[in-house]
């Protein structure tokens, strides 16, 4: 193995913290701008959608199927009820296409009579009433006449394929021929709920000229805009979408708000009043999108020294009842499935199928957390089989600059897998801790204190463990996605001398509203407070693409910087080369407004061939490592995740506090995914569809998280940033599962690693069970 010089951890952390000195004035935290919308959120002044008052607004509700698969024969309002004061909307009321515009036009806005219901929470009819009590009473008095159809719940059995890909590189057979150990493994992950704090919420307001104005909680105003235009036959102006303060998204407000907005609009157009469509938590959990469940099978050939020589991977994802974003989620899953490791002989086969469950969709990580849990756990098992340290096997295989991924992409720059790994290993004292837990495990075995009878306890109630995972995350949209999007972002100097950054990038807690002004202020040499970031209103801002895929900082941030540079050059050019900050007000007064629109230009590299799955799948990758320490209660299988060292390489850090916040939040979400977040499904219905039963970690369950930010700037965007939102989500779960193994000696191959699964695995692996 080549030797490498490593930056000592402290130095890198220091470096990360001085990327942007910001301004040292009162009211600044650690010399970085305060979160723009922070004070309003902290003081309760922030207005979320449900806080907005529209006089005369009615309340909307969705009548949903209660069957997983059925033909809709009739919708029958109870003839004994008074329907005169309310409006009912069915598919017959839809003026345009009855589809929620997405990748495929397969999902109806409302199931038409004669059509097929595909999942138990599918919208069939809509109801609006002047008050909530009338709505509640009448909602229960619409009967759906249906004819039951056979339902499919197993994605491996389903014959309806939404998407499938095959990635091939090298010679698989030759690779396995060369291998000194071949290990197979099967891994499963279930649904995960995004659980944003604010439920789905949209208010639709009828506008002059037959248009509609949407106010709501969402990630992607232009997705909603597009959906409205198609279904309601409206033009760009008639449909207007305004994002309101949004209490979290995590992908859950990428595509689903289109559905809610369409429902609210149909009701609003029919009753000619504003309609409030605000989901309660129960409806939100039972009907909206989740992370895709998946079954992932690995067959891996390695040399005795740990070198990976062949990887054969099969992924099956459960798309749910409709396609939504499944092909793209699956694509990202396939492209990340091998992990951040060089391997000359690879086959990755991926398919996503339909089941009669609510559609699955975008969730932080977007297909990568599922496959990275599998590959990392599998690699840890290989390390165990070869008696290698989990760190050592990664050192042996992790990508270096110049390595090729399975699509033939040559990693030319900004490759920091080793750096992330070594930072995590050093900061956690990984090898020392591992030696300690190994000694503790030996002592437990030696003293015979491991319970052999199922109903006994051992002398030591708890065991400690440490686990490591390494990950990567393709920056920005997959493949040719950014080229198709052709985003536009603008920087404007208004006639009255204001500087405005115009993008469709939404704030949902991650910091868009803070970092864009920060980036532009730095370019223009003005204080950050002088840069305005107007709200995400399709009548005001250009389509700079969706706020997804950790692309905001990297792609749109880059466009904004380029626009700002052009603006600066133009203004300075008109003013004898004097600095922008001295002349821009006079320039605006004399010259009038100047607006620069910057359009996306493809990144350099090998264009991605979507047919053959060859070429540069992403312009660059972010790199992450996590080391988790856990304490497992050997009596009950309860896991307490105590510490996580989260190392994330993000290109450049724009705002360290917000960036660390992303790392901590993503890590905790990954800990929940690893340990307790479990959606139980019976006959296609989520059984635990309430906050009392779908549990996420509380403050008391949260580990101490130490985030270490590493920078390997991406040279083809002006600021070098690669994005941070999803990275920490990819590595947390496999690190926790590895730590559980270190503590207990048992591998949990299905997420979440619940106490029930841990005790069952321990019972199956006990000497008694083996005998």
């Amino acid at each position, binding site marked *: 193995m080549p030797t490498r010089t490593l930056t000592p951890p402290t130095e890198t952390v220091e470096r990360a913290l001085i990327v942007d000195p910001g301004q040292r004035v009162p009211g600044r935290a650690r010399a970085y701008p305060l979160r723009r919308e922070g004070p309003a959120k902290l003081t309760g002044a922030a207005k979320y959608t449900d806080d907005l008052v529209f006089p005369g607004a009615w309340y909307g509700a969705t009548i949903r199927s209660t069957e997983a698969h059925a033909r809709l024969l009739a919708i029958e309002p109870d003839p004994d009820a008074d329907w005169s004061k309310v409006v009912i909307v069915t598919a017959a009321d839809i003026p345009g296409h009855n589809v929620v515009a997405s990748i495929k036009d397969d999902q109806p806005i409302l199931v038409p009579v004669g059509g097929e219901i595909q999942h138990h929470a599918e919208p069939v009819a809509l109801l609006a009433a002047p008050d909530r009590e009338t709505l509640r009473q009448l909602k229960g008095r619409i009967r759906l006449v249906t004819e039951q159809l056979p339902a499919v719940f197993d994605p491996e059995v389903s014959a309806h394929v939404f998407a499938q890909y095959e990635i091939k590189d090298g010679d698989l057979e030759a690779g396995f021929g060369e291998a000194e150990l071949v290990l197979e493994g099967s891994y499963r992950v279930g649904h995960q709920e995004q659980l944003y704090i604010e439920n789905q919420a949209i208010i639709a307001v009828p506008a002059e000229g037959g248009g509609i104005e949407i106010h709501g909680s969402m990630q992607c105003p232009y997705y909603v805009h597009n959906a409205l235009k198609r279904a309601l036959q409206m033009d760009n102006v008639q449909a207007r979408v305004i994002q309101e303060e949004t209490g979290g998204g995590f992908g859950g407000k990428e595509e689903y708000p289109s559905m809610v907005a369409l429902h609210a609009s149909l009701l609003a157009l029919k009753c000619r009043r504003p309609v409030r469509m605000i989901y309660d938590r129960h409806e939100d959990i039972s009907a909206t999108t989740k992370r895709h469940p998946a079954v992932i099978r690995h067959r891996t050939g390695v040399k005795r020294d740990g070198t990976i020589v062949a990887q054969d991977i099969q992924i099956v994802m459960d798309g749910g009842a409709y396609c939504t974003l499944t092909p793209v989620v699956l694509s990202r899953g396939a492209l990340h499935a091998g992990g951040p490791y060089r391997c000359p002989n690879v086959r990755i086969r991926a398919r996503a199928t339909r089941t009669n469950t609510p559609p699955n969709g975008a969730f932080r990580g977007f297909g990568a957390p599922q496959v990275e849990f599998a590959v990392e756990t599998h690699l840890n098992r290989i390390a165990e089989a070869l008696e290698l340290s989990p760190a050592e096997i990664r050192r042996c295989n992790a990508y270096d600059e110049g390595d090729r991924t399975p699509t033939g992409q040559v990693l030319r720059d900004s490759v920091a897998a080793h750096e992330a790994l070594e930072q995590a290993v050093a900061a956690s004292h990984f090898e020392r801790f591992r030696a300690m837990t190994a000694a503790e495990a030996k002592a437990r075995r030696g003293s015979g204190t491991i*319970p052999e*009878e199922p109903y006994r306890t051992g002398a030591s109630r708890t065991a400690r463990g440490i686990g490591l995972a390494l990950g990567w995350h393709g920056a920005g949209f997959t493949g040719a996605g950014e080229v198709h999007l052709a985003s536009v972002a603008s920087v404007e100097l208004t006639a009255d001398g204001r500087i405005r950054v115009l993008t469709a990038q939404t704030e949902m807690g991650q910091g868009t509203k803070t970092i864009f002004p920060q980036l532009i202020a730095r370019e223009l040499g003005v204080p950050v407070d002088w840069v305005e970031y107007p709200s995400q209103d399709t009548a005001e801002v250009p389509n700079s693409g969706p706020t997804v895929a950790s692309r905001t900082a990297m792609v749109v941030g880059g466009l904004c910087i380029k626009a700002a540079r052009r603006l600066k050059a133009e203004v300075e050019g008109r003013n004898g080369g004097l600095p922008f900050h001295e002349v821009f007000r006079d320039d605006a007064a004399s010259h009038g407004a100047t607006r620069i629109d910057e359009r996306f230009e493809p990144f350099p590299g090998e264009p991605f061939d979507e047919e053959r799955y060859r070429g540069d799948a992403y312009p660059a990758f972010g790199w992450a490592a996590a080391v988790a320490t856990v304490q497992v209660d050997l009596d009950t*299988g309860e896991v307490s995740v105590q510490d996580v060292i989260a190392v994330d390489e993000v290109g450049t850090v724009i705002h360290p506090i917000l960036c660390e916040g992303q790392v901590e939040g993503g890590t905790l979400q990954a800990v929940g995914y690893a340990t307790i977040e479990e959606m139980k499904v019976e006959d296609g219905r989520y059984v*635990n569809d309430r906050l009392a*039963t779908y*549990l996420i970690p509380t403050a008391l369950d949260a580990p101490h998280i130490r985030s270490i930010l590493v920078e390997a700037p991406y040279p083809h965007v002006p600021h070098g940033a690669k994005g941070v939102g999803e990275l920490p989500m990819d590595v947390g779960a496999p690190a926790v599962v590895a730590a559980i193994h270190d503590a207990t000696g048992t591998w949990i191959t299905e997420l979440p690693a619940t106490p029930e699964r841990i005790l069952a695995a321990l019972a199956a692996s006990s000497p008694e069970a083996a005998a």
Partner: protein
Amino acid sequence: MPAEPPIDTPRHLFEAYELLAAGPIRPIAGGTDVMVQITGELGPIPERMLDLSRIDALRGIALEADGLVLGAATTYTEIRRSALCREHLPALVEAAATIGAAQIQNRGTLGGNIANASPAGDTLPILLAADATILVGGQRGERQLAAAEFFTGYRQTALAPDELILQVRFPLRPGRELRFRKVGTRRAQAISKVVLAIAWRDLGAPGWADVRVALGSVAPTPIRAAVTEAVLEGARPTPAVADLAAETLADELAPIDDVRSTAEYRRTVAARVLHRLLRDAGGW
């Protein structure tokens, strides 16, 4: 959210008794169960509600000659902060601390936990293990019920529709030890998968006396494990006794699979929690 039913807020018990006798009316104390049922539309909305929060007679924690007496409207926070509870009934304090979050503990009451009669009610095994009695009352008079007779079926109690829970009396017996353990999905805001309380008296005799083993979340009601108690009665917590008691408990329980856990897990964990408590008591 559905319309709010009319609410009566009496200040005296006799007024509450009159309202109850005129029924139907749903008593509400902290509301931590009732409100969830209403907003979650989990059953019919009460036609009227009887707010018990202003009745002083239902409040207070006192040490009386034969025991510790808690008013039914005592909140979990009050239990946690009570010096009397901490001194005489630390296991109840421990149980109160595991319920919900701070906001729930501020509102939720001991009497409410009893009236709600959930098999997962975290304080209920303590009542069973401590031989608590529940004082109930109405226009027809007052009566004392043993906690062990109170829970008659799944969410069913011996309380008549015209009665209120007034007080819970925990007898304080010399030499009694009481231990509590809850196993939930997370460390706060979690409904239990298994909850177990064990009480015994160690009077220096050859074995333990008055052994009580009580559990929640393993049956339609909070229960006492009589067969297991018999194994432990008169015995000492040696490894052999603990093994036998744990196996007996595993045989005695018939838990079910539900949204929170599995029957197998509950059986195993209940047995192991007992084994662990006996191991700790035995000091081996």
